[in-house]
């Protein structure tokens, strides 16, 4: 059938967020006040009409499993289809596959039992809020084997360095995939591939002891594949380092960015947590800040992102900081350019100041 199934492949994503990824994979890192990075990819898949999504993950997947739960909050708690977190648990002594090919090999069932003829594959580091219906139409219309989703960037940012560049011909045809840093056409690591092509390339990769499906299966076979591209021109960003993570969180305090990421399209789905509205008490003083529900504010907050259930007590000052869920900031604390992971408590009177290039990061559940 002319429908897509989804695959979020985390095998080759590194734990780039230092303290923030000691206990969770990057895809589970909190972002923009109430989300995890993976929420954007998952929501985009659901918006594109995808009803079954698999996640290939190799370690630190518990927080991911806790976050997505049954998948109900993405309408993916289905009897048929649904959401499958697939950690490595393989017991086949004859298995010779390596790298992400082990996932493809050991989860072949997943591809076979679906009626979809196309697979939308994505990582978790490209952040946008969109349906990929148009990309899929383009993929079908051009009868492509593979369609790469690209974005054009005006300014090369540090997080763009590692993205492949796409040279395009007529109608989006992919002429070359390079590392040419002067080319502003970036591959987003999101692509659509025909299921039969995928399965054929997987077999081929395994037979030749390859370990990276996209590089060895797709890129090395470019000449034999009908490969096209589709450009997404809405608001987007990449997060793949502490610096880009911090910068993009703070950038969302630009009203235009906030508007474009969250209101140009239907909402982004995330885990529902039933927090009450934010409570501003009489001594609250809040400016230029994103706040998720459940926060209780007595103190002063400026140019910051507050996740769910953060408490800022009277006399505390929070500036240019990212405070994750359920942190408590006691009386008289002063924070600037700080990232607090969840469940951190900062007791009274302390001051912590980092820089915007090197924010001061506190790992989760610490009490300081």
């Amino acid at each position, binding site marked *: 059938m002319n429908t897509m199934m989804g695959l979020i492949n985390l095998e080759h994503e590194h734990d780039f967020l230092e303290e923030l990824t000691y206990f969770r994979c990057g895809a589970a890192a909190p972002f*923009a*006040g*109430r989300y995890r990075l993976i929420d954007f990819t998952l929501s985009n898949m659901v918006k594109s009409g995808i009803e079954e999504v698999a996640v290939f993950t190799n370690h630190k997947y518990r927080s991911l499993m806790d976050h997505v739960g049954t998948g109900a909050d993405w309408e993916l708690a289905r009897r048929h289809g649904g959401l499958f977190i697939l950690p490595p648990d393989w017991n086949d002594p004859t298995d010779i596959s390596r790298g992400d090919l082990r996932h493809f090999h050991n989860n072949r069932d997943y591809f076979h039992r679906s009626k979809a003829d196309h697979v939308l594959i994505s990582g978790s580091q490209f952040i946008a809020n969109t349906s990929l219906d148009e990309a899929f139409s383009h993929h079908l219309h051009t009868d492509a084997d593979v369609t790469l989703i690209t974005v054009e960037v005006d300014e090369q940012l540090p997080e763009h360095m590692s993205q492949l560049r796409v040279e395009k011909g007529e109608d989006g045809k992919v002429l070359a995939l390079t590392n040419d840093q002067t080319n502003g056409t970036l591959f987003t690591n999101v692509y659509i591939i025909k299921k039969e092509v995928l399965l054929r390339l997987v077999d081929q990769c395994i037979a030749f002891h390859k370990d990276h499906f996209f590089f060895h299966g797709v890129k090395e076979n470019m000449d034999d594949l009908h490969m096209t591209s589709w450009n997404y021109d809405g608001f987007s960003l990449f997060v793949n380092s502490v610096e880009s993570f911090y910068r993009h969180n703070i950038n969302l305090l630009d009203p235009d960015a906030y508007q474009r*990421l969250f209101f140009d399209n239907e*909402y982004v789905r995330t885990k*529902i947590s*039933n927090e009450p*509205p934010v409570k*501003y008490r009489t001594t609250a003083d809040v400016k230029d800040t994103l706040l998720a529900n459940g926060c209780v504010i007595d103190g002063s907050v400026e140019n910051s992102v507050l996740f769910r259930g953060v408490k800022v007590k009277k006399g505390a000052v929070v500036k240019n900081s990212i405070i994750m869920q359920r942190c408590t900031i006691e009386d008289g604390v002063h924070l600037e350019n700080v990232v607090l992971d969840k469940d951190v408590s900062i007791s009274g009177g302390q001051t912590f100041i980092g820089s915007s290039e090197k924010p001061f990061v506190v790992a989760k559940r610490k009490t300081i």
Partner: protein
Amino acid sequence: MKKRCVGMLLAGGEGKRLGLLTKNLAKPAVPFGGKYRIIDFTLSNCSNSGIYTVGVLTQYSPLELNKHIGIGKPWDLDRQSDGVTILSPYTAKEGGSWYQGTADAIYRNIHYIDQYDPEYVLVISGDHIYQMDYDAMIRHHEEKASDATISVIEVPWEEAPRFGILNTKDNLEIYEFDEKPAEPKSNLASMGIYVFNWRTLREYLLEDAAKSDSDHDFGKDVIPAMLNDEKRLYAYRYEGYWKDVGTIQSYWEANMDLLEEDLSVSLNNKSWRTYSQDTNFPPQFIDSAAEVENSLINSGSWISGTVKNSILFECIHVGRSSHVNESILHPHVKVGSGCEITRAIIMENVVIPDGTVIDGTTEPEPVVIDSAYIAQLT
């Protein structure tokens, strides 16, 4: 399948004294507390008390209410064999009619209750704001080997004549029900929350239905009939926050109560959460020109003006140099620039043009603003 207790939630009230707020909406569906509907409090009480078989009796303007409850997911009431069930008045081939009274509403759904063959039936209404453990009440009912237990709250003696008063012995056994007594003998007011032994109640409902002169009301008919037969009726004392939001004034007060710190009703109580449909809107944005104080604001909102002592639902926009004070803004309200809004309740989706002044301090009750009001302004 046998269940220990079935909850029957009366949610058909028109709430006439809420005026505009209930023009197109059943009272239990009226937005409350920045994120909730009034009925969320009772539904959450059921879920938190472990009562997972709940019939919701709707009749007046049920559309929004039915949509809000949906399959009951937020309250963990989406279950295969029980969960929440909407019970509208049944239309037979010859036609249908509304429930005639609280007892009639239960009577006409006997078949629903019977299929679970419960020990107890809990009768509650979706009109009140409170957080209560019904299971504790049922345990009290069991301990007293009671036929019916009625939850009561102490009210100031001078207000007692406005309530249905229960006169009890020291052991809380009820010997008399006094509807709005001129000279009250007690200050224990009925909260309209009942636990019955189903087998006993079932008999009384059948009997009551057969009486042509009955109002088919629990307070007026069924409870007096049980007292008359010397059944064992006990009161159950509830201590804590409880408010009937029957008028615009009490609706507004109950909302403002959420801004108080010392009340036992709390939206931040982790062990007694109040659940509602979550909207998945993005975090709220308080921009550089904003000033927010002593207020509740829900997600998706964007505040550029001044908000004080107010309750703002989801996706509110307050423009620059606008002042919102002592007001309740229902979902998706847009307030332009340079507005002054005081002591007002602004209804869903209303767009308030730049420079509008709305002052509810001159009226006895806060003013309720709908789109028609705004249209007539301009």
